[in-house]
């Protein structure tokens, strides 16, 4: 299905990260209109009605998250942008930050207005140097125009934005780890509750939203929540930036409606499996998502459909594997990732990811035995639901799904 690009409409426009170009393409018109004509709660209601869900991976309804903020207004409220993209297989937020940061900044102005925040932080992963420079330049230009700072658009609303850099730690994409990192500490996730909406940055109520989620907000306010909801599937509003990588003819980032069939993404948009080979498996939503076999790809790419299929949409990082791929090797690299990135705070995760990687390494190097497979499944089971954050669960899922769905291949490999 051909759809008009929404989030990616400026990606191929030269210099769209500069405010002059962005404004010639309509940037900030909606923010100005909304801040001078609507009430904050009307913005939240429209975002709710649009069925916008958090596009960082969790898929939680964005408007509902905003409504968790305390109503008493005793403490300042912070808006924090999670630009700590790091899920293997995902390369979408970087495009917004590098090519159209004003889209996100306009979304921040609207979100901050809705949640009554006067201070926002953008947390960009440390390796994204160009993203940092472009976003900082865009923020500076927005200040110079009076779109940030005091009395934005003459509406009486204030907003300051600080652009911040991380320093190389996947776990900081977890929102409470991100807050600890932003406060200048190690990126250790916090126990929830309290959720950040109640106790977040500097102990104050805080909303953490993903880059792409915020980039959707101006379009919702401009074209209406019904329009946005209709772009997607039931309960999953809008379009989504799908990162497509691995063994396809045309890897890339494709903006498609929520609920687009996975087969269509691979065969139509990706041009099919590279070299005419046979499809073996697909990871639909970043490394943490359970793997699908070639027989399981007739599924729609939205949060609910993929959950019903026993996996998840996650960050919508689609990784395609042809029939030449060795699953033992892929599990080796998956466990390497999780053992490297575990923050080490909880024992089941610190020890579990470490031992899982050691055992998979042993198998991969030809020193495994058949009992190792059940040991790995036991380790995975004992990591699930026993830690402060869901990182350990995410580490367990590839182990479980690769071994369960490709058991014979693992057994043959061990020999």
């Amino acid at each position, binding site marked *: 299905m051909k759809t008009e690009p929404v989030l990616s409409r400026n990606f191929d426009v030269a210099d769209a990260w500069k405010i002059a170009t962005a404004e010639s393409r309509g940037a900030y018109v909606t923010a100005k209109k909304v801040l001078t004509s609507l009430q904050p709660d009307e913005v939240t209601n429209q975002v709710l009605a649009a069925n916008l869900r958090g596009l960082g991976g969790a898929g939680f309804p964005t408007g509902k998250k905003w409504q968790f903020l305390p109503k008493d207004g005793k403490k300042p409220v912070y808006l924090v942008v999670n630009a700590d993209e790091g*899920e293997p297989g995902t390369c979408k937020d970087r495009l917004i930050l590098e090519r159209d940061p004003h889209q996100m900044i306009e979304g921040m102005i609207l979100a901050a207005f809705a949640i009554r925040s006067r201070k926002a932080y953008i947390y960009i992963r440390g*390796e994204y140097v160009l993203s940092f420079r472009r976003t900082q330049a865009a923020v500076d230009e927005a200040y110079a125009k009076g779109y940030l700072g005091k009395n934005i658009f003459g509406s009486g609303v204030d907003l300051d934005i600080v652009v911040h*850099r991380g*320093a190389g730690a996947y776990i900081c994409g977890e929102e409470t780890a991100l807050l600890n990192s932003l406060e200048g500490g190690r990126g250790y996730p916090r126990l929830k509750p309290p959720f950040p909406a109640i106790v977040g940055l500097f102990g104050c109520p805080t909303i953490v939203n993903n880059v792409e989620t915020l980039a959707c907000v101006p379009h919702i306010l401009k074209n209406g929540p019904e329009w946005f909801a209709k772009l997607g599937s039931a309960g999953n509003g809008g379009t989504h930036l799908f990162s497509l990588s691995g063994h396809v003819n045309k890897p890339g*980032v494709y903006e498609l409606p929520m609920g687009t069939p996975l087969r269509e993404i691979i065969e139509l948009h990706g041009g099919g499996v590279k070299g005419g080979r046979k499809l073996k498996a697909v990871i639909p939503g970043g490394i943490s998502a359970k793997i699908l076999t070639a027989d399981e790809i007739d599924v729609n790419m939205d949060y609910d459909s993929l959950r019903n299929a026993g996996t998840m949409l996650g960050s919508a990082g689609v990784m395609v*594997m042809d029939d030449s791929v060795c699953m033992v090797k892929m599990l080796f690299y998956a466990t390497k*990732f999780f053992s490297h990135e575990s923050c080490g705070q909880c024992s089941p995760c610190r020890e579990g990811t470490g031992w899982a990687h050691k055992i998979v390494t042993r198998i991969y190097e030809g020193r495994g035995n058949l009992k190792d497979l059940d040991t790995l499944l036991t380790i995975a089971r004992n990591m699930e639901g026993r830690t402060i954050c869901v990182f350990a669960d995410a580490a367990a899922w590839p182990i479980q799904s690769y071994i369960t769905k490709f058991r014979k291949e693992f057994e043959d490999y061990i020999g």
Partner: protein
Amino acid sequence: MSEAVLKSLDPEAQKIVAKYDQKRAATLMLLHLAQDKVGYVTPEVEAWVSKWTDVPVVHVRGVVTFYSMYHLKPAGRHHIRYCTSTSCILQGAEKVLCHLKKKLGIENHETTKDGKFSLEEAECLCNCDAAPMMQVGDDYHVDLTEKKIDQLLDGLK
């Protein structure tokens, strides 16, 4: 030696700290700033960050060792982060990495004798649609081949 460099960074540090609601939140940005200029995180850098953020040096050390981007010893003039996550592996990252290591004569976490290059096998840098890829200094290089590695590294001073 790093004291003089750090002193020259004081005005910029002051501006950075002023942006944040609490001084300690500037820790990561100050470490980036100092490492860029000094070359790596020396004990003097940690003390300087501690001074600006009002947190104990031991806390700063804890932060430095948590994140992969801070170096406790000098890195090469060109620090290479080579992605070894799933999408890059699917697209032949291992073969290209072998070539890169052989060319430089170093392994993961090592620096060439002339101090020109250091190598770090990194986790996903999120350019999966143009794999294999790596970061040299600040810049991303994508769709890597052995030939592309040769051209790129030979062209660096």
